[in-house]
């Protein structure tokens, strides 16, 4: 593997070089604010397209609110247009732009989620490919950046990842603590980007310093859960009706925040946006936390309580993903914990399952439902 070093202060110049190479560059950026907004405002960090290296937060802050999902799996996009003429309906293809893109400053958890999305949208074994996703994916290069300051909601080390992991990365950067970054070229796409940045890259990387820097961040992750027994416990169908689901899930209000900010949640809906006799068929993000997500036309709803909807989300992360797609459903970014307005915490479920798996004969609590 090729390595090099780069001055952290040269990241702006890197972005400039990439922009000058006619690449679309996405980077973490602070949203502009009005003056004097009072205590109700906080800094809003999001992945946004940048047109120069002057205004970026690569390596600063922790996680942009939006993650990189929306740049591969669009929040909304037309599948085709249609027009009714008499009794005939004409289907009109819609032109999509798929610009060559570099996303810089991606944290390891977000990078790891890309393989998960790929397993859903481009399943080589099943022979299914979502053209919108795969076209974007094939034109997107990820420059990742090891974490230095995980917060109390981070738990990547509980799901077999690490704050300095290069999984899913094309070009990986790690701070060495002396103003320099260790650069690792992981893939051919990363190599191509590294070539464009050649003028700023120096010699060889410092592998020993990189390992040391990475290890020092591991210690800062305090939210540790044992995820190993979760899948087996979920596979036991008797546990589908365990009392835990109601007890922990009853405060859930079904707002769907956790699914929308989740880097691996991928459910979508399709509607016709009609205007007169023509319109578009549009695909857009949906959420399993909505009460009408599983509502049948008959009026029956198999997930008739909110706790059952959250049970589905947990099963999707720790059973459906690994079983059906053979990838990981949770990357430990902690966004769902930060976003939840009622402090429903996925790691509490993880801890509870690990506990139950270790104590299969524990007393069952009373149910307050039904």
């Amino acid at each position, binding site marked *: 593997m090729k390595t090099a070093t780069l001055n952290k202060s040269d990241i702006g110049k890197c972005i400039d070089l990439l922009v000058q190479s006619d690449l679309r560059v996405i980077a973490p950026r602070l*949203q*502009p604010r*009005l*003056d*004097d*907004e*009072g*205590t*109700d*405002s*906080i800094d*809003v960090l*999001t992945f946004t397209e940048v047109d120069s290296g002057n205004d970026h937060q690569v390596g600063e802050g922790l996680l942009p*609110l*939006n993650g990189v999902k*929306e740049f591969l799996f669009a*929040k*909304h996009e037309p599948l085709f247009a249609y027009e009714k003429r008499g009794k005939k309906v004409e289907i009109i293809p819609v032109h999509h732009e798929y610009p060559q893109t570099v996303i810089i400053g991606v944290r390891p958890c977000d990078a790891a989620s890309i393989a998960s999305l790929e397993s859903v949208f481009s399943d080589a074994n099943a022979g299914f490919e979502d053209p919108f996703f795969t076209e974007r994916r094939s034109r997107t290069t990820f420059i990742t950046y090891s974490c230095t300051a995980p917060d*109390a*909601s981070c738990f990547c080390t509980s799901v077999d990842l690490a704050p300095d992991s290069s999984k899913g990365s094309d070009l990986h950067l790690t701070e060495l603590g002396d103003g320099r970054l260790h650069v690792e070229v992981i893939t051919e796409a990363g190599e191509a980007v590294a070539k464009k940045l050649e003028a700023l890259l120096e010699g060889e990387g410092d592998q020993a310093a990189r390992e040391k820097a990475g290890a020092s961040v591991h210690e800062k992750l305090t*939210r540790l859960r044992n995820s190993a027994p979760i899948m087996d416990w979920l596979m036991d169908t008797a546990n589908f009706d365990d009392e835990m689901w109601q007890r922990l899930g*009853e*405060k859930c*209000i*079904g*707002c*769907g*925040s956790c*699914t*929308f*900010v989740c880097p691996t949640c991928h459910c979508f*809906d399709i*509607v016709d*946006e009609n205007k007169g006799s023509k319109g578009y068929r*549009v695909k*857009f*993000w949906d*959420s399993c936390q*909505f009460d*009408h997500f599983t509502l049948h036309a008959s009026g029956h709803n198999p997930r008739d*309580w*909110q706790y059952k909807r959250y049970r589905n989300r947990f099963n999707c992360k720790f059973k459906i993903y690994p079983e059906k797609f053979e990838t990981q459903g949770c990357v430990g970014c902690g*966004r769902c*914990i930060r*976003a939840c*307005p*009622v*402090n*429903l*915490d996925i*790691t*509490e479920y993880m801890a509870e399952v690990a506990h139950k798996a270790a104590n299969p004969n524990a007393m069952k609590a009373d149910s*307050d*439902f039904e």
Partner: protein
Amino acid sequence: MIEQIRNQARKLLEDGDVDVVIGYAEGSDPARTTPVFIRKAEDVDKLIYDPRCINSLPLYLNKRHEYTRKGWKKTAIIGKGCDIRAIVQLIAENQLKRDEIYILGVPCEGQVSHPEKWDGSLHDGNRASKCIGCDVMTPHETDFFPGDKPDVDRSNPYEVTSPKVANLMELELDKRFAFWRTDFDRCFKCYACREVCPHCSCNVCITDETTPSWIDPAAHKKGVFSWHLTRAMHLVGRCTGCGECTRACPMDIQVDLFNQRMKEVVQESYSYKPGYSLEDKHPLITYQVDDREDFIK
């Protein structure tokens, strides 16, 4: 203070006067608290109250959250003043009956605007702007209150205390529009602003209606603007200003700025503040013969 609340909650549960006490407990990390449902007297020590208890709990009394299906006939709820305003508004809108609810009022010193801004104390740097000028820090409608409940003058008009509302209103129209366009660009329509609102009571929200589809469900500009403006309009004269819609927004869009501005408009037009009287109907669902007509052209 919290000891008196716990004792009363214990007594209510032991005597069978209520089925459940809805309150706050410590959350999953030190900055956060969480809503908790206490059903057994021995669990009342989980209850806490401090400036981190920012959730508006009356949300769980909204029929949309189906508390009645849980078999709860009478519910006790810990309420700070602004939340009790939400309860009063729910009762005024016939969403709730007064005798189904036992209100454990708490004296409030204000709330922190964001849990991550909590540093062990409440001060000007982290106090939510909704708390400035609050006239229900000693709550108005309670069944139990720890200590004496002093009389408070609540006749003053409602004040908009977020400096951002004033800032926005001073902007030229096109700049104000540009501000919302930028902020709404982040919206992906998770509807957290709706689900967290104590006053969103519709069985089927207008945005979930499909025949016809009134509001495009996709998060493009049209879908996002029509959703947020409709939401704001549906809350005119009803919003009690808990600010939960903004707090719950995972993309940090300050959607309650609309509601704050609308409150000013209702105040100016009808001298009405929602959530203070169990009987008063909000101005947009009632009329008086001497209502203003000069705006009808």
